[in-house]
């Protein structure tokens, strides 16, 4: 089909309002998945600030103790978990791995990703807690 013919048969698509994602649960959770980036970015910026504060020396550093900070983290956590679940589950659709010339089942790939998440969490948690006092 030529470009002209394509243009001639193009159908009118009414513009969607900004609130389209509130109409169905599926749309809503899609937007939540996209939104997870914001709280996670804010929490990582806080971590960067926490690292920078260590440069103030022993008299200028104090650990984060405020209730507001714990609440902020508690709000960020479900977004972080939702990102993890949705992104690691996607691996079964995106990744194509062949083992002995046979494609690996998507369930195996997803299970490997979730297993990696568990191992990484245990290792990082052990370092954060193990070097603490």
């Amino acid at each position: 089909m030529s470009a002209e013919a394509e243009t001639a048969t193009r159908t009118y698509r009414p513009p969607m309002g900004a609130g389209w994602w509130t109409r169905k649960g599926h749309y809503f959770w899609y937007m939540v998945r996209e939104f997870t980036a914001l709280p996670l970015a804010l929490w990582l910026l806080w971590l960067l600030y926490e690292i920078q504060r260590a440069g103030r020396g022993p008299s200028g550093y104090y650990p984060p103790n405020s209730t507001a900070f714990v609440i902020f983290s508690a709000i960020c956590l479900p977004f972080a978990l939702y990102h993890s679940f949705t992104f690691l589950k996607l691996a079964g659709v995106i990744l194509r791995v062949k083992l002995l010339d046979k494609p690996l089942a998507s369930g195996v790939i997803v299970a490997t990703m979730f297993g990696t998440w568990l191992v990484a969490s245990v290792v990082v948690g052990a370092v954060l807690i193990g070097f603490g006092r």
Partner: protein
Amino acid sequence: MTEQVARRPALAHLFWWFMFSQGGVLAALLIPVHIVVQGILGPLGVVKVVDRHYDTWISILGNPIVKLYLLVLISLPFFHFAHRLRYLLVDLGVPAAKSFPAQVVFYGAAILVTLVTIWVLLTTAPISLG
């Protein structure tokens, strides 16, 4: 007459998609445990955490492997976030978020965070293997 179309690999596209996916995987694997331990359990006093005291925090921050880890942990997810937030705006009815200037702003912010992270990691604690 046949028209020859020059086909070039979309290297820029490949690069940004690589950064998006790697940032997404890293954020998925590593951020929840940091939030749980450093953001909730540590401040509540449930467990001892490395950033609760200056000496343990500055000591681990001096380790070059930890510096490299923190650089990857903080900077790569921002390339993922840049893409997600750009398309969140598109989905909310802001098509300008697809434009080249918007790409410069969002991916530029990710590059800026990377540079600031490198600067903070290099200036906060001297590199030490001890």
